[in-house]
């Protein structure tokens, strides 16, 4: 049973690993480069016992212009988990497909294409609708997507909606004579 440290020593010989974070004895996160990522995942599956892809997701670091894909793997023998991060260029997000490693990978990749616009060339059914039928906007999980503006335009407001600004309200009621129209 490989401890996280032993596993890292072994993998570190062959892969460029960074941002290693041992969160618990049975939970480890690390980052691997995009060209090495799929080979790295395959080694984890075939040689290190991480046979199960628990989930696959993405984080949008809009300020840094990058996406961070996250593959969460589970080892059924040791019940250890490992989270593998991979940085992608946010403006041209494309990643090698893992549907050949884990069949359910195609579903996650279809979802990530729909929600973030990430391309996974060769992934079956990549452009099928995942849960957004007839979506005509930018992918909605990208942080530049303005949910409120979209909702206002698409659905409008229920009758009876309307808000009062706390500062304005307090000024009107509490000190009306002391206002010069310089409120902002």
């Amino acid at each position: 049973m490989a401890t996280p440290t032993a596993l890292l020593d072994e993998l570190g010989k062959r892969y460029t690993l960074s941002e290693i974070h041992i969160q618990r004895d049975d939970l480890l996160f690390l980052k691997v480069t995009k060209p090495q990522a799929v080979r790295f995942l395959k080694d984890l599956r075939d040689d290190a016992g991480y046979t199960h892809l628990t989930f696959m997701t993405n984080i949008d670091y809009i300020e840094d212009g990058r996406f961070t894909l996250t593959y969460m793997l589970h080892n059924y023998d040791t019940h250890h988990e490992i989270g593998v991060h991979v940085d992608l260029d946010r403006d041209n997000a494309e990643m090698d497909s893992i549907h050949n490693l884990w069949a359910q990978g195609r579903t996650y990749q279809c979802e990530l294409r729909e929600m973030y616009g990430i391309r996974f060339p060769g992934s079956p059914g990549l452009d099928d609708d995942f849960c957004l039928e007839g979506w005509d906007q930018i992918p909605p999980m990208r942080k530049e997507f303005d949910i409120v503006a979209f909702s206002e335009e698409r659905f409008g407001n229920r009758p009876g909606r309307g808000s009062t600004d706390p500062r304005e309200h307090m000024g009107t009621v509490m000190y009306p004579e002391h206002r010069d129209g310089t409120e902002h």
Partner: protein
Amino acid sequence: MSLKDLISPFYVWQRAFQKPYTQKRPIEERPGAPRYRGFHINLTEECVGCGSCEAICQNHAIDMVKVEGLEPRNGDSGLRPKFDYGRCCWCALCVDICTARSLRLSNHYAWVTEDPDAFHFIAGTDAMPWNQNSLGYRRDDDYHLLTHDRIEMDALSPEESLKGFDEVMKGYTEEQALLEADRCVECGICVATCPAHMSVPDYIKAVRNKDWEGGLKLLYETNPFSTTCGRICTHRCETDCVLGLQGTPIAIRWLKRAIADRVPAERYAEILNDTFTENGKKVAIVGAGPGGMSAAYYLRKQGYGVTVFEAQAHGGGMLRYGVPSYRLPENQLDKDIDYIRSLGVDVRFNTRVGQDVPFSELMDNHDAIFIATGLSSPMKLRIDGEEHPRVVSGLKILDDVAKGQDPGVGKRVAVIGGGNVAMDAARVSRRVGADVTVLYRRRIEDMPADPEEIHESKAEGCHLVPQAIPVKIKDADDPNQVVIVWGEAEMVSDAKGGRPRPVLQEDRMHEETYDTIVSAIGQGGDYDFMGECLGSIEQKWGKFIPGAYQQTGVSKIFVGGDIANSTADAISAVEDGHHAARGIHRFLSEEGLQ
């Protein structure tokens, strides 16, 4: 058709008598998990209506609305969040951001009604079946979207600060200011509490954007003493800052200073661009303190010819002669005053009205008068022996030091009082090398001085003795010394519900010898210069009671500052001056004010 096809429907029928596999709904309701995100609950009493929930809601599902019977007051807008469940996605960001921690989610998730408008309600206020529900999502104690701790400001150590009169607080660096500004949620609850109703969220935003010029313009809309107030303001706004509900309030005062300190005086005129045309009317102002000079600024901007009469050799009033330079350096006060003067405000220094110029001349030659002379006469202790030559007033000591003279307090000093003047007199005495004891008749928490003044005076080695009532002052053996007799006091709760009262314990008396006793129990005003006008102006407890827009019973006389408000601080004086300027403009223009 086979026989099986004929019989099979009857096989199905036999199931009609078996127990169904599916759960019956809604007869067997399943409770949500303990931390389930169901319908909202808001603890209305704890909510302050800051609107952070509305601001963070990604789906625009929340409106801040008026609630019947809930009026706005300092620290509470009186508004409460109303939820539109057609938009809510139960992300609970509203719960996580809630400054009062009053908002939470119940674990109640199933609610059936045929009226879609029923899913649009004020949580916690409208009666809902889950309002008493004790389970559901809460923010974790260790999860914070807000930064609860204030960015500290660098300061001189007590040892260093005692060496002289250098400014103790060093001011925020740009990095510190940005971090502190970043904590603000921009709710604007503080604006009502600020006596001058400064645009706090806007200028904090300017700090965040490093827009020092825009920030300065915002400050001057309501306060031409921003360099000063950025240092010594009583910062009532911070008392009601919603960040203070769970952490420390935003350092609003320090952020004001951060703006003013970053704009050099030479650039004020260009940035503020205060242009006006003369309107030919003249206003006299008595007193060049924050009240008088603020009135001068706002009147000048409307084109009035403004003359300020000041008894002292410099402007600033109590800010100069009552606040020591380690809290407010003179050059910073001058920065504010000089800009106002640069607009063509004529300040006549060393000119005491009633002595150097008759009040009647002001009345005859001006269209309106604003009086903000401040409280400069020390109140009497009203105990035997207080005329002793070794008893001096706190103001006298501060005045001496402000004028560069040695206050001559000796090595052992007792200060009587618990206000800012008492604290400053004590700290100044420490700086000239004295051991200082402060005697105050109530408890430390009752002291009217700013908490930081109390804190800093303790740090600088002043010995604070609460619940000490002076009884008598008498001669010491050494003619250069003086003896004070004081007794310990017990706090007795007031039967009428007022604050507890100190009662002298005659069996616990003390007698001590000092080089100087400093009396600093408050100040009164001196209004004799106004002559017969005084009879037409309402007064109570030695202060004027102005009407709307600071106007008095003599229609062309307006009053403000310490002589006309109960707070007696710089920021209130600034607003009185500003408000009087509004009033005078109405009075002298067609807008009307009789």
